[in-house]
């Protein structure tokens, strides 16, 4: 029972943390361009300082 008393709040807090992170990422526009995010990883930034500066 003592184990539960510790583990359940921990599990709930972790879950709530995930939910809060989801809400934050939603409001920060991280879900606005899902296909683009997959593409951007392929952009070679070595030859463009302007990109890096952003």
């Amino acid at each position, binding site marked *: 029972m003592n184990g539960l008393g510790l583990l359940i709040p921990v599990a*709930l807090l972790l879950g709530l943390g995930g939910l809060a992170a989801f*809400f934050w990422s939603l409001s920060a526009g991280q879900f606005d361009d899902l296909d683009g995010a997959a593409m*951007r990883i392929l952009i070679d930034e070595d030859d463009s300082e*302007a990109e890096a500066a*952003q």
Partner: protein
Amino acid sequence: MSETVSHSEFVLPGIRCAACISKIEDGLSHTPGVHAARVNFTAKKVAVDHASTLDPAQIREAIRTFGFDAEPVLAEAPKADIESRELLKALGVAGFAAMNVMLLSVSVWSGAEGATRDLFHWLSALIAMPAVAYAGRPFFRSAWRALRHGHTNMDVPISIGVILATAMSLFETVTGGPHAYFDGAVALLFFLLAGRVLDSAMRDRARSSAASLLRQTAPGGLVLRPDGSTSWMAADRIDPGMRLLVAAGERSAADGLIEAGESAVDRSLITGESAAEAVKAGDRIIAGALNLDGPLTVRVTAAGPDTVIAGMARLMEAAGQTRSRYVRIADRAARYYAPAVHTLAAASFAGWMIAGAGWHQAMLIAVAVLIITCPCALGLAVPVAQVVAAGALMRRGILIKDGSALERLAEADTVRLDKTGTLTLGRPTPVGALSLEKEEASVALALARVSRHPLAVALASALEKQGTRAAELGRIAEIAGAGIAGEYAGAQVRLGHPDWVGAPDPGKVMATAFRLDGHAPHVIRFADALRPEAASAMNELKAMGMEPVIISGDRGEAVRPIAQALGMPAMVSLAPEDKLAAIERLERSGRKVLVVGDGLNDGPALAAGHVSIAPSSASDVGQNAADVVFLGDSLAPVPIALRAARRTQSIVRQNFALAIGYNVLAVPLALFGFVTPLVAAIAMSTSSILVVGNALRLRSCAR
């Protein structure tokens, strides 16, 4: 920052890869006046923050020099965005609650008893009740709206099921009973919200790329005061009797009579016709017409709501009302489903009471029936299939505005097509091979690029496609109503009207002439060519039993060659009202008409048809009225979209059959009291997975 920053957005239909993203962002960030540029690949758009001194047309030109077509769009309508964000948040909350409650439920199912079980039930209640209150709102709202108007829809049984299950479980928890359905209630919400999110994502995607396409209608114009001074006035403040100055390259902000000046106007926004029309003093000009050559002074005869273009908008609004009465297939199913389910639950409650089970057990069984029959798979059956199909079509360059468009497209049994801009490209293209030598071609390109005249634009794009590079020219001048002159290596060059250039008169065809001093003049003929694959698309439509017919506003002799080439009948010389009447007549006789058109003159017909398709080259009026917009020149997307819609509909029906088949198996179990929360959870997930898996088969439907 001292200067003001403006924000503009452009649609980029041509971006395909990571290199395109970096090319555009990189190029724009090196363009003077641009502060930041961010490409959204999903929406195929770029958002640019720039100095307000830089106007959108210049940015568009800049993007064009990187090799991409760009169309300016209105910045996103925030309302739609908020709606889908709300749904996503609700989905997040439901997902969180479903996972945690399920975790607790699993331990209850595996045999937790006494105080531990009660503790877990209480914890589940604490998580589930706020989650249901938050994540259930979209369903409760829509169910309430339907009930208030005396209808019923899918959301009614969903809401009743979820609320009853939660209330019953709370009662069980308080009294220390063994069965709580919290996990069922939140998992149900989670699955259904997933369907809703997909549905709204599809609508957003189409909206951002098609619905807001804006072809810069004039927001206002320069008004000439009686005392000779001029001032810029917004379109709604311009009154009849005022005199309007319309510079070359500007659109007229009102209808009127030309008082002074000579020019050519492009009325493609209104008519979809590409050929420039020569105008002089005394001629009429209507709002939205683009002045190509010289400045015009216009005496305003009608402004604001009285213009031809505004009248057309009203006609469209009225015509579109029939379509808003369309009831989606899921809601049609709910009309039969909801009463059946509720009767069944009530009957099982009554039956068990009569059998002497006590109201508590009878209630539990009734709730179990409601949960088992809650249209979880039904709620997913339609949106998943439609989203998968819309995604497949989108990859083929066909944008579906919403799910109901796919349903209506599948029902269409007749097709009516406009000619200019729909069956044809709607813009002049040079006829045959260009007879210019290499040197001449590069000079001609340099001249043609200067002008906005449709023939010059067509010539420039044809030459660029050949890989011609523009020559260096000096003293370039555009002469209104004649053409463009310049100097190349000391020699005079001219591109323009055949008479002015000194070429033989080509007769009554669209033509321009080019002459490099010391060489013979060349006459270049233009025609509004058929779209590629038009003939095969029409044959396919015929094979599908769609009976394609041309409805054109053009003269009979202009339509005849097209009709003959495609082997289909045509109705000619139709005013917009006549087109509308023709469509309405068909609709009244019980046909479901698919209208394909592009111009403003097709707007009312597009709105009146059961479903409508427009090419992306259409006027913004046409694009807004259409349910489906296709990119590119080819006409093949029309039969492709039709076939995909029909296939989607058959998958939707299969999904319904799967969902109902599952109910037929599960309901007797629930009726006889064998359904525990564990059985409900397994049954619900299995049927949902089946439905989603079946819908995924549509991924190749647009091939």
